[in-house]
C-alpha cells in the first residue's frame, strides 16, 4: 500500500463514490415511487399501497420483481437498434448528471481530503445542461422507433416540449451565475455561505440566492417541471390523449428504465434547485466531528426531499396544460421573463460592483 | 502530450470522410450531415492549433463556427422541407430541373 500512487488512490476513491451514489440513487428512485403513490393517495383521500410490508414499504421491491418477470413484448417492424438504445440512453444520461452534484462538505481521513462529490468540474453546471439536452434523444427515438402513431406523436410532442423549456432553464440560472461568478457547483454553493448583511447589519437571513433571485427561482422551477415531463406539463404521457405517449410500445424492463429515468431526472433538477437557490448543504452545524461532517449532507437531503414532496404535491393537485397552452407559456411568457430577469440582475450587479 | 501532427491527422481524416460522403451519398439529409462532419473536422484543427500556440483565439473561432453551423442547419433544413413539399423526394438526383 505504501507504493500505491496518488492516481491509484484517486481512482479507488472515485470508484467507491460512484458505487455509493449509484446505490443510493437506485434506492431513492424506488422509494420515490412509493412516496408518490402514498402522497397522491392521501391527497385523494385513499390509502395507497399498504399490503406489501408495513405501510406498503416493500411495494417497490414487488414492483421491481414484477417488471423483471413480465413478458417482454417487442412489436413487429421496429427499428431494433434504436428501439433498444432509447431506454438505456435515458437511464445512462439520468445517472450521468449526478456525477457533478455536491452533497456535502468534505472530510479528512489519513491526511487525505475526500469531497462529497464524484468530481467537481469548473464547468459543472454546463455539464448538467449538456446531459439534459442529450436526454431529448431518448424520448424522440423511443417514439419514432416504436413504429406506431401514438408513440410517434407523443415522442415528438414530448421532445419539442423538452427543448423549448431547456432554454428558459438555462436563462434562469444566468442570474445566479452572475452573482456566484463561477460555473462550478461547489463554488456556487460556497458563494451562499454566511448571512445577508444590509449596510453592515447582520439580518440573520442565510446568504441563499432565493432571497435575491425569486423570479429566477420561479422560472427555473417551472421550466424544470416542464423539462421532466411532470404535471402540470405531462400531456405527452396523458392516457386520455395519447395512450402512453412515447413509452406505449415498451414493456417490462425497458418501460421500467423510462420510469426510473423520469424519477432520476426529477431528483437531478431538485438537487440543482437546492444548490443554485437554497444554499446546497448550508444549515445549522454543531457537535463533534462526525456530526459536523454528516449534518450538511442531512440538510442537503432534507431540502431535496422538500422539493420532491412539492413535485408530488403538484401531481396530486393540478390539472394538466393543453399542448398549445404549454408551448405558448414556454415561449411567450417564461422565456421573456427569464430574459428580463437576466437584464435586471445584470444592471443591479453592475451597479453594486462598480467602483 | 499529443503531437500536433496527430491532431491534424484526425482532423484531416474526418474531413476527407465527410467530403467523400458529401460526394457519394444521394439522400439530401445525409449530404447535409456530411457537411456538418466537415465543419467539425475544421473545429478540431482550430482547437488543436489553439492548444499548440497557447492562444485562445482558436477556441473562440471554433465557438463561432458552432454558432454559424446552427444558423446554417436551421435554414438548410427549412429549405429541405420546402423542397420535399414540392418534389416528394429526398434524392438529390431528382433535383435536376435546371439541368440542360
Amino acid at each position, binding site marked *: 500500500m505504501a507504493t500505491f500512487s*496518488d*492516481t491509484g488512490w*484517486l481512482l479507488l476513491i472515485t470508484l467507491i463514490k460512484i458505487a455509493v451514489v449509484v446505490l443510493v440513487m437506485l434506492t431513492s428512485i424506488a422509494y420515490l415511487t412509493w412516496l408518490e403513490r402514498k402522497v397522491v393517495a392521501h391527497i385523494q383521500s385513499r390509502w395507497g399501497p399498504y399490503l406489501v410490508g408495513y405501510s406498503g414499504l416493500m411495494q417497490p421491491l414487488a414492483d421491481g420483481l414484477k417488471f423483471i418477470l413480465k413478458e417482454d413484448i417487442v412489436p413487429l417492424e421496429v427499428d431494433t437498434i434504436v428501439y433498444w438504445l432509447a431506454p438505456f440512453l435515458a437511464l445512462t444520461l439520468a445517472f450521468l448528471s449526478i456525477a457533478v452534484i455536491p452533497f456535502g462538505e468534505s472530510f479528512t481521513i489519513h491526511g487525505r481530503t475526500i*469531497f462529497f462529490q464524484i468530481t467537481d*468540474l*469548473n*464547468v459543472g453546471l*454546463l455539464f448538467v445542461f*449538456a446531459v439534459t*439536452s*442529450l436526454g*431529448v*434523444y431518448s424520448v424522440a427515438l423511443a417514439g419514432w422507433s416504436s413504429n406506431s402513431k401514438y408513440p*410517434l406523436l407523443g415522442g*415528438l410532442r414530448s*421532445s*419539442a416540449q423538452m*427543448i423549448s423549456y431547456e432554454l428558459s432553464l438555462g436563462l434562469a440560472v444566468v442570474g445566479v451565475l452572475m452573482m456566484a461568478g463561477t460555473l*462550478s457547483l*461547489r*463554488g456556487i454553493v*460556497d458563494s451562499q455561505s454566511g448571512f445577508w448583511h444590509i449596510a453592515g447589519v447582520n439580518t440573520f437571513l442565510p446568504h441563499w440566492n432565493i432571497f435575491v433571485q425569486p423570479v429566477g427561482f420561479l422560472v427555473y422551477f417551472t421550466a424544470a417541471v416542464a423539462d421532466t415531463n411532470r404535471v402540470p406539463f405531462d400531456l405527452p404521457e396523458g392516457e386520455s390523449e395519447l395512450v402512453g405517449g412515447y413509452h406505449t410500445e415498451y414493456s417490462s424492463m425497458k418501460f421500467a428504465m423510462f420510469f426510473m429515468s423520469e424519477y432520476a431526472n426529477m431528483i437531478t433538477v431538485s438537487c440543482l434547485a437546492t444548490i443554485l437557490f437554497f444554499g446546497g448543504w448550508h444549515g445549522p452545524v454543531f457537535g463533534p466531528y462526525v456530526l459536523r461532517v454528516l449534518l450538511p449532507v442531512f440538510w442537503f437531503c432534507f431540502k431535496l426531499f422538500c422539493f420532491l414532496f412539492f413535485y408530488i404535491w403538484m401531481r396530486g393537485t393540478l390539472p394538466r396544460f393543453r399542448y398549445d397552452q404549454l408551448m405558448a407559456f414556454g415561449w411567450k411568457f417564461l422565456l421573456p421573463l427569464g430574459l428580463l430577469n437576466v437584464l435586471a440582475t445584470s444592471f443591479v450587479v453592475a451597479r453594486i460592483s462598480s467602483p | *502530450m499529443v*503531437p*500536433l*501532427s*496527430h*491532431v491534424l491527422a*484526425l482532423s*484531416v481524416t474526418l474531413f476527407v*470522410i*465527410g467530403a*467523400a*460522403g458529401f460526394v*457519394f*451519398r444521394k439522400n439530401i*439529409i*445525409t449530404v447535409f*450531415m*456530411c457537411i456538418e462532419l466537415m465543419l*467539425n473536422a475544421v473545429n*478540431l484543427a482550430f*482547437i488543436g492549433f489553439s*492548444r*499548440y500556440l*497557447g492562444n*485562445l*483565439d482558436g477556441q*473562440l473561432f*471554433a*465557438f463561432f463556427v*458552432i454558432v454559424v*453551423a446552427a*444558423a446554417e*442547419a436551421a*435554414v438548410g*433544413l427549412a429549405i*429541405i*422541407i420546402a423542397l420535399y413539399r414540392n418534389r416528394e423526394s429526398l434524392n438529390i*438526383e431528382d433535383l435536376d430541373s435546371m439541368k440542360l
Partner: protein
Amino acid sequence: MTVGARHGVPVRIETNLVPLFYIFGALAVVAALSVVAQRMPVHSALSLIVVLCSLAVVYLLLGAEFVAVIQVIVYAGAIMVLFVFVIMLLNAGRETPSHRSRMAHWLGAPLVAAFLLEVLFAIWRQFPAGASHAAAAVDAGPAAIGHLLFRNYVLPFEVTSILILVAILGAVVLAKKEF
C-alpha cells in the same frame, strides 16, 4: 493535464491521459465512417451524434473545456435534434439505389483513400512528430473566453446574433405551409 478542479483551481494529477485521445479519435473515425455508410438517415444521425460527443472529449483533452461543453449542448443537443426531427417528420427511409455509372462508384473509394494518404503525408512532412511541443497551458475556462469574446471579438459576437435572427426568420418563412 488538469483532472478535476476545486471550483476553478486546477488540480494537477500526474496521469497520462494521452491514450484517451487515441481511443476517442478512433471512435470518432469509426462513427464518421458509419455516418457515410449507413443506409437509413436516422442511423447516420445517431452516428454523427457519437462523432460530436467523442470530439467533445478530444477537445477536453486539448484543454478546451468550455468549447467541449458548448459542442455537446449546442451541436449534439440542439442542431442534431433539429436533424432528427426533420428526418422523422419527412419519414426519410432507406436510400434508393443510384442510377448513375457503376464505374464512378467503384473508382471512388480508392481515389478517396489516395487523397487521404496524400494529405496525411503532407502533414507528416510539415509537422514531424518529435519537433512539436505545446505552449504553456492557457486557462481556457469560461471567464477567459468571456473576456476575449466581449473585448476583442465583440463585433463578430453582435454580427452573429443578427445572423441567428435572420436565420430564424428565414427558416420560419421557408418552412411555412401556406403563403
